């Protein structure tokens, strides 16, 4: 059986509302996206969805110390084991609860699948004026002896003048296939500040579609840092909608891939109000036969004046067989707009390597340090030191050197 059959069968076991039924039908009538869809041109799900999966039916597992091993050690932790919420912290001014059904504004087949049948996830409500200094760490851990398909549907609501930082890690520790359809909706009320740090660091049996929709009111700053270190297939859809003036959306990404890993970052900023900003810095490093896709869409609506939008996507192809497809997609309908974008594809600078080696660094270390330096512009934007350290360690690990990149 293929995943679509698995899903059909699974859907019959659920009690669906009318709306969920509609979403389900719309998913089944279009199926999974395929490469004839412009948005999925370089990104084929075929190899994944042809497999036989168990849908949402896994016992909570009990593996010694796994949480300690994966966690960065923050006090405030939300933990999911095989889809089930097993622990969540109590924090003043913040309500954290298990999955709650909610409607999402945009739709596509992946989101229809999610809204119709996802039954797991978290809901975080931050009260007005609540400022949390230490981040909340969210772990989604998966372990199973069968191929597993899981969906999460999460929502985060930030009240006025609130401040929240999240560190999220979706991590599979098993040997069979895992395929996750992850969706998070974030609503940022006026004057709130939000930072979402994602690590996607998995083995080659792991596939992920992660959609994150962020809605920003006036005077909000919202930042998403996406750090990809592995997984056979990753597709991130990161969408910002600015619904108030003086909103700022920041996106930073680093992908370091090897083997035949694949990662696709699709981002979209919808500047719907005047006096707003967006900053986007994505760095891709591709070894072996790995493949990257970047598509950065920026929309400035006709009535949105004084928009400042910056986008860059820089890529290093560190082998002959790695590839990157990168595309800026600018749709600017207002006149008073500052918009700059640039993408580069290159190799490590030979002069710089000679320079570094002349100071005593061996070839491998010089290359790794230069590669790290290349990612630094994006890494530097992470405000949580523990997370930044972890990312620097993972880069060193991925480049197979014992260097401490911390400064």
């Amino acid at each position, binding site marked *: 059986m293929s995943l679509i059959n698995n899903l059909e069968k699974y859907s019959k076991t659920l009690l669906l509302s009318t709306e969920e039924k509609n979403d389900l039908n719309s998913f089944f009538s279009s199926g999974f996206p395929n490469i004839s869809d412009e948005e999925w041109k370089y990104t084929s799900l075929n190899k994944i969805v042809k497999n036989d999966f168990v849908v949402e039916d896994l016992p909570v597992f009990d593996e010694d110390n796994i949480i300690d091993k994966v966690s960065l050690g923050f006090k405030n932790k939300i933990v999911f084991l095989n889809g089930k919420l097993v622990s969540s912290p109590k924090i003043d001014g913040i309500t954290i609860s298990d999955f709650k059904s909610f409607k999402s504004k945009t739709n596509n087949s992946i989101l229809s699948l999610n809204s119709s049948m996802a039954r797991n996830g978290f809901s975080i409500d931050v009260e007005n004026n609540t400022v949390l200094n230490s981040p909340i760490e969210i772990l989604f851990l998966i372990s199973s002896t069968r191929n597993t398909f899981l969906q999460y549907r999460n929502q985060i609501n930030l009240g006025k003048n609130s401040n929240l930082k999240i560190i999220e890690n979706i991590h599979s520790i098993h040997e069979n296939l895992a395929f996750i359809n992850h969706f998070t909706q974030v609503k940022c009320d006026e004057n709130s500040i939000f930072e979402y740090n994602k690590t996607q660091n998995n083995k080659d049996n792991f596939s992920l579609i992660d959609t994150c929709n962020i809605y920003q009111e006036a005077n909000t700053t919202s930042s998403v840092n996406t750090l990809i270190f592995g997984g056979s297939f990753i597709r991130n859809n990161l969408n910002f909608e600015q619904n108030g003036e003086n909103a700022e959306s920041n996106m930073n990404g680093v992908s370091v891939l090897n083997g035949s890993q694949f990662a696709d970052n699709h981002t979209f900023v919808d500047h719907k109000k005047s006096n707003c900003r967006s900053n986007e810095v994505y760095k891709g490093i591709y070894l072996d036969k790995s493949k990257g896709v970047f598509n950065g869409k920026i929309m400035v609506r006709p009535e949105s004046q004084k928009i400042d939008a910056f986008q860059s996507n820089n890529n290093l192809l560190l082998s002959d067989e790695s590839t990157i497809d990168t595309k800026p997609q600018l749709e600017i309908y207002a006149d008073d707009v500052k918009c700059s974008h640039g993408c580069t594809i290159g190799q490590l600078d030979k002069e710089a390597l000679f320079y570094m*080696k*002349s*100071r005593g*660094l*061996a070839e491998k270390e010089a290359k790794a*340090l230069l590669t790290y*330096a290349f990612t630094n512009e994006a890494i530097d934007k992470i405000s949580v030191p523990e997370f930044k350290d972890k990312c620097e360690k993972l880069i060193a690990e991925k480049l197979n050197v014992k260097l401490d990149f911390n400064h």
Partner: protein
Amino acid sequence: MLNIKNLKAQIEEIKILNGINLSVNAGEVHAIMGPNGSGKSTLASVIAGKEDYEVTDGEIEFESEDLLDLAVEERSNKGIFLSFQYPVEIPGISVSNFMKTCINERRKQQGLDPMPATDLLKLMREKMELLNINSGYLSRNMNEGFSGGEKKRNEIFQLAMLNPKLSILDETDSGLDIDALKIVANGVNKLRTENNATIVITHYQRLLDYIVPDFVHVLYNGKIVKSGGKELAYELEEKGYDWITKK
């Protein structure tokens, strides 16, 4: 310390070095002068081990060891330091982080533990003081946005940190005003001992007023066409190169 015999090198079939002989002993300062394009930087790069150049003949010995078989970093770890004519900008890595990595990688090869952060900082501060470098400098990215003079100072800072046996200064004076030149020269002089040696590559005699050479060599068309004492530099300053090269 350094023995170069009949060294010939080329890049993509273009012959650049055409039989260089040069011998440098510990404690000595050698100046290499010569018109633009004569091969001075190429000689420096070949000694440092730049792979772009193909050595077609001759040999380089460093402390009685064949240098030509060694990789760039091995030469560096043996004590050869090249101060670049055009230092490379490396965005994304701070001066202190770069130095820390270089020092600790070297220690690793020597079987030593990393230098404790406080010792390292102390050492860096000491060398910065020697070169009159202000404190904000350590957190700036390597050479990124540095003025010409700052870049050259950064080269000598690295030299001071790595404490090489043989320093090759390629046009270290270019981009420096007279005050900076004095500071840098003073730094280089303070680092001199009877156990290390310096090769100063320059166009102008000016630097040699401050770093006084024991020998001056004129390089032309990839060959050393004349050698002498420090007076030769004054003679060149006065008469130009024509009287040598037209012969």
